[in-house]
């Protein structure tokens, strides 16, 4: 009896390993291996154009002390994140609150605002680039109609990034809105009834009941949106190409240019690794603070 049992559980284990083999091998070859590889390459001057050699910490030293472009791209990336996140999350939450009420035509609004999520980001960026074109773009034509000379939106150092931020918010705000809508529906109605009986104002109900109850979703979307914003790339390539000057050159765009335009794969890996540390740190922060910040957790 005992032998047959252990035989069976051994057979089950073999099936288990076979079932997870594809993804584990993929993880090994396409993720774990490459991340170690990237770390190794970041200590060389690997290039597709010339033989490479080990350069120790030179790449990292160069990044931190001599590479002004790197710091510009870090600044631009943070500018993008700092502009995008508050706008995206407050708008998503406001829309979710409005749509969770019993307003007429709610389904129509929800569908419309979610539509960009299922549209390719490249298409979205191309259309907006066309709308913000300097001479014949829709925005400037409308401004012209009112007798205003519209600016060269995407060719102006101060305006290019805000335009990219706003259009990026419109692309993804529907996603966060839907997550918030689902979270709002989970809040038990009796909490609001109790709060109303106690004479709590609408604002008090929002800050004392709604916000704490949906905090897990808030936190999750915050981290996802933050990590996504640090990796912004496609919109930048399409709408501004990093310009004008370096005003919208972001981290991933810089890595792409270093690695695949200048073929400085070693140096690009060092910069990429700094991005990895940033993303990893944020993910770990999410995991460790989840329990402390979030009130309501199953």
């Amino acid at each position: 009896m005992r032998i047959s049992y252990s035989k069976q559980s051994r057979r089950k284990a073999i099936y288990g390993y076979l079932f997870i083999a594809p993804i584990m091998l993929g993880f090994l070859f396409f993720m774990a291996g490459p991340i170690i590889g990237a770390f190794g390459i970041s200590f060389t001057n690997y290039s597709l154009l010339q033989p490479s050699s080990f350069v120790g910490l030179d790449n990292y030293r160069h990044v931190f002390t001599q590479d002004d472009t790197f710091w510009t791209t870090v600044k631009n990336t943070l500018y993008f994140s700092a502009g995008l996140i508050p706008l995206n999350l407050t708008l998503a939450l406001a829309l979710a609150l409005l749509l969770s009420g019993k307003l007429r035509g709610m389904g129509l609004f929800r569908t419309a605002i979610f539509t960009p999520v299922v549209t390719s980001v490249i298409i979205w960026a191309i259309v907006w680039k066309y709308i913000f074109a300097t001479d014949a773009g829709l925005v400037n034509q409308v401004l012209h109609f009112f007798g205003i000379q519209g600016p060269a939106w995407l060719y102006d150092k101060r305006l290019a990034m805000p335009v990219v931020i706003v259009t990026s918010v419109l692309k993804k705000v529907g996603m966060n809105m839907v997550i918030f809508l689902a979270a709002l529906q989970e809040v038990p109605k009796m909490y609001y009834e109790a709060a109303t009986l106690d004479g709590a104002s609408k604002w008090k109900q929002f800050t004392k009941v709604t916000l704490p109850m949906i905090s897990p979703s808030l936190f999750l979307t915050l981290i996802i949106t933050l990590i996504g914003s640090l990796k912004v790339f496609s919109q930048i390539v399409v709408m501004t190409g990093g310009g004008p000057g370096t005003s919208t050159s972001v981290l991933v765009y810089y890595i792409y240019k270093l690695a695949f335009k200048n073929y400085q794969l070693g140096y690009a890996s060092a910069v990429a690794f700094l991005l990895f540390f940033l993303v990893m740190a944020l993910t770990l922060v999410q995991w460790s603070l989840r329990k402390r910040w979030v009130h309501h957790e199953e």
Partner: protein
Amino acid sequence: MRSNALRYAGLGMRYLLLIVVTALVVIPFFWMVTTSLKDQNKIFDFPPQWLPHPVVWSNYKEVFTAQPEFLRQYWNSVYIAVLVTIGTCLVGALAGFAFAKLSFPFRNTLFLVLLSGMMIPNEVTIIPNFIWFSKLGLVDNHFPIIVPPILGAGGIFGVFLLRQFYITIPKELDEAAEIDGCTPWTTFWRIMIPMTTPAFATLAIFTFLNSWEDFLDPLIYLNSSKLFTLPIAMNLFTDTAGTAWHLLMAAAVMTTAPLLLVFFFAQRKFVEGVSTTGLK
């Protein structure tokens, strides 16, 4: 009286915000479609033509003559997204089932190791992967934009999502199957897979969208235009003479329309999918 006025003002403000955001979201689609139907010489007219006059349907035909490889590129995007979606569902179901239902040594450790892969950005591994694939002669080939997405971060997301799903299936079901003489494979293939449809729908939607709009990978790996996928093919409508906006917009409509149609018909599935994965 006064409180009524306030209530209507509040209601008005709500609708105003909703209408403004909706307008901002709808305008690009409207402008994309109308431009795609405009005469080439009327695109930059002032005041702008809100509705195309005359309506030039032939722009859509012209896309295929101006870019003879457009059909091919369209097919590339379709078949790659389909393969990636099927592959991800399959790999995700296999491992998700194993992690949820089969017991084997180091199961939880292996699962945690796998999950840690979710924080590895594609933007970091793409450099060694590129070097590796170019040594294997797989650059300018669809392999690197099909296989690593299935077996990399996308696959891990699939494993995670489907494991969550299989955990909710009562233990009694697979125990009964086992007593009836099912091997783990037959339990998986005959009993679990048919039950997985709703979870597959969610995963398939995400995976297909990600593959359809993937930009960085094709940009790096593909050089010949006959291998291009749609996101990078859009660049071909711009040359030294400028951008053929009427054709680019027609191509954009053709790229966007199928997904929008699926979305409008299966909206509920989409929205449920997003919110359940968002909540977990």
